[in-house]
C-alpha cells in the first residue's frame, strides 16, 4: 500500500473519502439533507499502530440544496471494526433546512396516517415527489450501515429503498422500518439490509436495529417475456 501522498483520483483516496461521506450523513443527514462525495483534492496515508490512517481534503456536495463545500478529514481504518472518522466542514450548518424538516416532521408525526412506499427509485430511476424525503432518509440511515461495513477494499452506495413502512411515533421520534439494497462496488454485490430507524429534527437520524438479509438465490429458470 502506498504511503505518503496519494493520487486523489486513485481508488485508495476515493474509497477513504466515501467513508467520510457516510460519516457526514450519519452526523448531519436528514430527509432534507443528503451528502455525496464530490472531488478529492489531497490525500495522504500512513500505517499506524491501530491500523491505516488517511488525511483528506475533499469537496462534499449536499444533494437537495445543491451546495458544495470543502471538508478536511482524518480517518482510521482499524485492523477490524468500524472506521473512525473526524471531519470538519464548516459550511455544513444545521440550520438552513429547519423549515422543511419541521414541516415534514409535523406532517408525519400524528400516527393516524402512516406512510409506506416501495421501489424508490423504480427501475426507470423515477419516484413520486412525496417519496423523495423518504429516499433521502433511507440513504442517510444506510450510511450508518455503510460506515460500519466499510474498509479499504469496499465502496458502498445505496442502490434502492426496496420498501419502507412508517411505524407509530414514539417519544416524539418518527419511526420507520426500512429494507434497503446496498451496492458494494468492488465485489459488485447487492446486499439487503433491514433497519429500524427513528428521526426528528431535534435528534437527527438514529438506527436502532440492523438486520442483514440472506442473499436470495431464488433461481427458477425464468419465464421470459420478451
Amino acid at each position, binding site marked *: 500500500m502506498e504511503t505518503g501522498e496519494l493520487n486523489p*483520483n486513485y*481508488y485508495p483516496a476515493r474509497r477513504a473519502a466515501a467513508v467520510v461521506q457516510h460519516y457526514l450523513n450519519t452526523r448531519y443527514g436528514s430527509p432534507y439533507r443528503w451528502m455525496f462525495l464530490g472531488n478529492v483534492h489531497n490525500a495522504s496515508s500512513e500505517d499506524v499502530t491501530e491500523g491505516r490512517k488517511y488525511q483528506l481534503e475533499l469537496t462534499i456536495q449536499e444533494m437537495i440544496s445543491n451546495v458544495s463545500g470543502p471538508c478536511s478529514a482524518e480517518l482510521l481504518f482499524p485492523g477490524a471494526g468500524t472506521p473512525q472518522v473526524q471531519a470538519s466542514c464548516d459550511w455544513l450548518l444545521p440550520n438552513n433546512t429547519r423549515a422543511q424538516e419541521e414541516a415534514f416532521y409535523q406532517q408525519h408525526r400524528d400516527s393516524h396516517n402512516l406512510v409506506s412506499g416501495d421501489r424508490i*427509485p423504480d*427501475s426507470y*430511476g423515477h419516484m413520486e415527489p412525496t417519496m423523495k424525503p423518504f429516499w433521502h432518509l433511507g440513504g442517510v440511515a444506510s450510511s450508518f450501515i455503510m460506515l460500519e461495513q466499510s474498509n479499504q477494499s469496499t465502496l458502498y452506495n445505496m442502490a434502492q429503498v426496496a420498501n419502507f413502512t412508517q411505524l407509530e411515533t414514539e417519544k416524539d421520534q418518527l419511526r420507520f422500518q426500512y429494507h434497503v439494497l446496498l451496492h458494494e462496488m468492488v465485489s*459488485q454485490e447487492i446486499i439487503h439490509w433491514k433497519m429500524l430507524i427513528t428521526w426528528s429534527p431535534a435528534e437527527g437520524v438514529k438506527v436502532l436495529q440492523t438486520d442483514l438479509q440472506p442473499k436470495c438465490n431464488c433461481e427458477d429458470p425464468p419465464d421470459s417475456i*420478451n
Partner: protein
Amino acid sequence: MMLCLGSVGLVLLALTVQNGHGAPDSAGWNGKDTTERNYYTRYHNMTEISDWMEKMKRENPDVVSSMVYGQTYEERNITLLKIGLNSTKRKKAIWMDCGIHAREWIAPAFCQYFVKEILQRYKTDTKVKEMMKNLDFYVTPVLNVDGYIYSWLNNSTRLWRKSRSPGPVGCTCYGTDLNRNFYANWGTVGVSTNCCEETYCGSKALSEPEARAVTDMLGKMSGDILAFLTIHSYSQLILVPYGHPNISAPNYNELMEVGLGAVKAIKAVHGMDYTVGTWPDILYPASGSSQDYARLIGIPLSYTFELRDKGEYGFELPEDQIQPTCEEAYAGVQHIITYAHDKAFYSSAFKRYFFQEILGLLTLVMQIRLINIVIEMF
C-alpha cells in the same frame, strides 16, 4: 519563402480539419423529430430495441446493415448494426458494444443514441461524413441479451448483472460475469470462483457464448479495428487497459492522452467530471475483461466507459438524465474515434507532406548558396 508559407498553411489546414466537425448540435431537432426526441429519452426493452434496429436499417438502407454474430445461452441472437458508406475496398472499423452487464440500462440507451446521432450528422457534418466513408461502425446495442431481458422481468431482477447460463454442477446459482470471462489473464485477479457471486468468471475462459461471439468477431476483423469501446455504468470513468496490476499497455501514454482529451470533451458538455486511468489505479484490479482482450490482440485504442452517475441513483439512472448523459458520452466517444480515424488516415499523409517540405527547403537553401557563389565570382 513560398514553401514556408505552404508549411504554415498545411498546419492551419490540419487544425481546421481536426475541428471541422463542429460542436454537438441540438438544432437538428425539428417538428418531425419530436417523437424521436421522446424515444431517445426513455429506456427500452429488448423487443423495442430489436424493432428499432430493424427501423434503422429500413430508414437508412444504404448505410445501415445488421449482422447476427452469435447466440446467447438461451439461444437468442446477438446482433450488431454495421454503419458506414458502402465501399468496394476493405474498410477500417470502430467497435462499440453496450449492455454486457444487464443492469446498466444507460449503456444500451447510449448505443441507440450514438447510432441515431451519426446517422443524423453524416448528412451535414463533413467530419462525420468522412469517417462514415473511411470507416464502418460496428455497434452492438445489447450484448448480454439474456441478462438484459431478465433485468426487465420484475422488481427482484432489475439489478441482475451476469449472463443467464446455469452454474456448474453443484451450484444452483445462475450467470457468469461476461466481463471477466474473456481470454485475457483469465481468472487471475478481481474475480470470484463462487458461481453465486457477481464477478464469477465462469468455469473457464470463454465458457460463455456471448464472450465467444465477441472474440470470434474480433478475430475476423483483427487488424481492421482502430478503436474498441465497451459501455457500462456507473462511476463516470474512462478505463484504459490493463485490469491486471502487473501489466502495462505498450501505448499507455497514448491511451491516457486520448482518454484525457475525451474527459475534457465530456466536461465541456454539461460540466460532469469523469476520471481516466487503468483499472488497478482508479477502480479495482480485474482480469478477463473484453477491453483487455481487445488490447491484447492488438487493437491500439481500447476503452471502457463507465457512464453516470457516481452513486446517487446508480444503476437506476432517471430517464431525464438519459439525454445529457448520452450527449456528454457522445462527445467523449467522438474525441476517441476522431483521433483513431485521423491517426489512420492522416498521419501518413502528414509524413509525406513534411518530407516534401523539407526537401523543398533544402533545395531552396542549395539554390541560394549557388546564387551567392555565382555573385561572388562576379
